[in-house]
């Protein structure tokens, strides 16, 4: 199921939390939703689900969510690991959530088993760890086997094995032709998981494209070259207008060129190479590069860039 987010906009008093955002979530793909703290990711998700009132529309297969019945067969959302009554048993919590789509107790038990909560199904979740809360939230989201999954930071608090399980689960889910929309701060994880990325900063769209296109935006893709004669190679490159930087003894890095190009230049100049490695920027590098100026909350004691940012924006 395709999801079209059209001109979604939200203000909290003077703070313009989400600025005229438009993007699409494609079926069969995992779409990562990235942005710095306070950039408006959670607000956008709430707007998409109609939990917050704001401008713009979100259409699920061309129709607003309210027009679909049952809604839980269309979209399953997991927005917070603590959205449960601490004294309602995990199984009872899921039975309640399953009421809208007529989910059977058998399916509830299947999902509990799937997320690894079978041992605590009849326990009260008040004492659950963050990771267990995430599993319960995920169980609620997938209970009705929805066409669209929307998950806000689902990997927070999960151990490495669980993160790996979650990645495989979401990739399989998308491979069945369904749409997965997931926000996360774990960029290395997102790089492995997402096919597409939507990046926002200060509520505005920064990127909406495939992961490969997004990574190709990096300006710091470099090539590491080792050679017994790096000085000559550097001068040959300089004669072609390409700057090389010393990267240790007998090594240089060259920015914004491909390894093939450097290899060809070295071959033509008769320079022997002992190592030639393309160093691609990671998602983290590109993300930081593109969103650095759009960060509201920065480390190092810096004050929020614009003081009007209030605590209502929980991204």
């Amino acid at each position: 199921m395709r999801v079209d987010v059209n001109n979604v906009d939200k203000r909290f008093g003077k703070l313009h939390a989400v600025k005229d955002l438009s993007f699409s979530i494609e079926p069969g793909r995992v779409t990562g939703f990235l942005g710095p703290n306070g950039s408006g990711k959670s607000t956008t998700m709430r707007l998409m689900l109609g939990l917050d009132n704001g401008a713009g529309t979100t259409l699920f297969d061309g129709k607003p969510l309210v027009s679909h019945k049952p809604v839980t067969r269309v979209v399953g959302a997991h927005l917070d690991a603590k959205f449960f009554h601490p004294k309602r048993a995990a199984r009872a919590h899921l039975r309640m959530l399953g009421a809208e789509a007529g989910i059977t107790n058998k399916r509830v038990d299947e999902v509990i088993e799937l997320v690894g909560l079978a041992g605590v199904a009849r326990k009260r979740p008040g004492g659950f760890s963050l990771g267990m809360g995430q599993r319960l939230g995920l169980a609620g989201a997938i209970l009705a086997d929805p066409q669209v999954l929307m998950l806000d930071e689902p990997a927070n608090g999960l151990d490495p094995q669980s993160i790996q399980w979650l990645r495989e689960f979401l990739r399989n889910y998308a491979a069945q032709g369904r749409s997965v929309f997931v926000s996360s701060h774990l960029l290395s994880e997102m790089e492995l998981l997402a096919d597409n990325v939507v990046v926002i900063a200060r509520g505005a769209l920064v990127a909406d494209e495939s992961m490969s296109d997004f990574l190709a935006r990096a300006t710091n893709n470099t090539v590491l070259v080792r050679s017994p004669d790096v000085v000559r190679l550097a001068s040959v490159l300089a004669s072609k207008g390409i700057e090389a930087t010393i990267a240790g003894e007998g090594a240089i890095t060259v920015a914004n060129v491909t390894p093939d190009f450097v290899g060809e230049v070295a071959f033509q100049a008769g320079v022997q190479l002992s190592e030639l490695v393309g160093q691609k920027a990671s998602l983290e590098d590109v993300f930081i590069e593109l969103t650095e100026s759009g960060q509201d909350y920065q480390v190092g004691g810096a004050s929020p860039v614009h003081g009007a940012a209030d605590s209502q924006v929980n991204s």
Partner: protein
Amino acid sequence: MIAALKYEWRRLWSIRATYVVSVAYLALVGLIAGLSIFRGHPGYSISWKGLYGTPAFILCAVIISVVAAQTFGHEYRYGLIRLTLSEFPNRSVVILAKATILMVYILGMTVLAWSLLGLIGALAPQGVVAAGASNMSPSGADVSALWVVPAFTIGYCIFTMSLTMITRNLPLGIILPLLLATFVEILLTGLLTMISSHLSWLTNNLPMTNAMAWISGQGSHHGVVFGGWVLAAFAIGSAVFIKRDA
């Protein structure tokens, strides 16, 4: 709508607090009636109608109103409202389902309370519960018609639920109607009477003052005023619930 009713029913009965409140409510009703009947002064007698009026006592209403406050109070306290509205984006359906299930619950509890009172009446010493005896309930209310008992309880609980929708605060939802009944309106009436006799239209139309007068058998017009306040609170609560962010 059926799905929303089912959701709300499961929500109601999947927390221990509902069972605790239900038992506490029945225990209080039984205690009030039982003390009067088994420990009352010699010669005490009460009609069946008077006995069945026991649940309209304000303390009983306060106990059962905890469930009413929880209908929205728990949703906001634990963030569940976002799960609920993710499943039911049409907020009017959520309000209607919650109000309907609450009314069904209160009617069920009233029937249970009456059954308990019937048992207490049957076990009462001979002559204490008798046809033709006083219609004054153990709480001191003159019971004019039995339908007033569930009607008052429903009105009080919808009022509580509406205040919880407005304040988004569970304890406030429970305390505010009680404070109005036992303190605020009495103080306000006293002050306004001292200030000017022309303000009697205001003191005569306060919600809980009229509710108390209604269940004391002082006339159904008091019930109409109380009902008006309940509807107004419900309308405001619904409007803010629909308008505000979850």
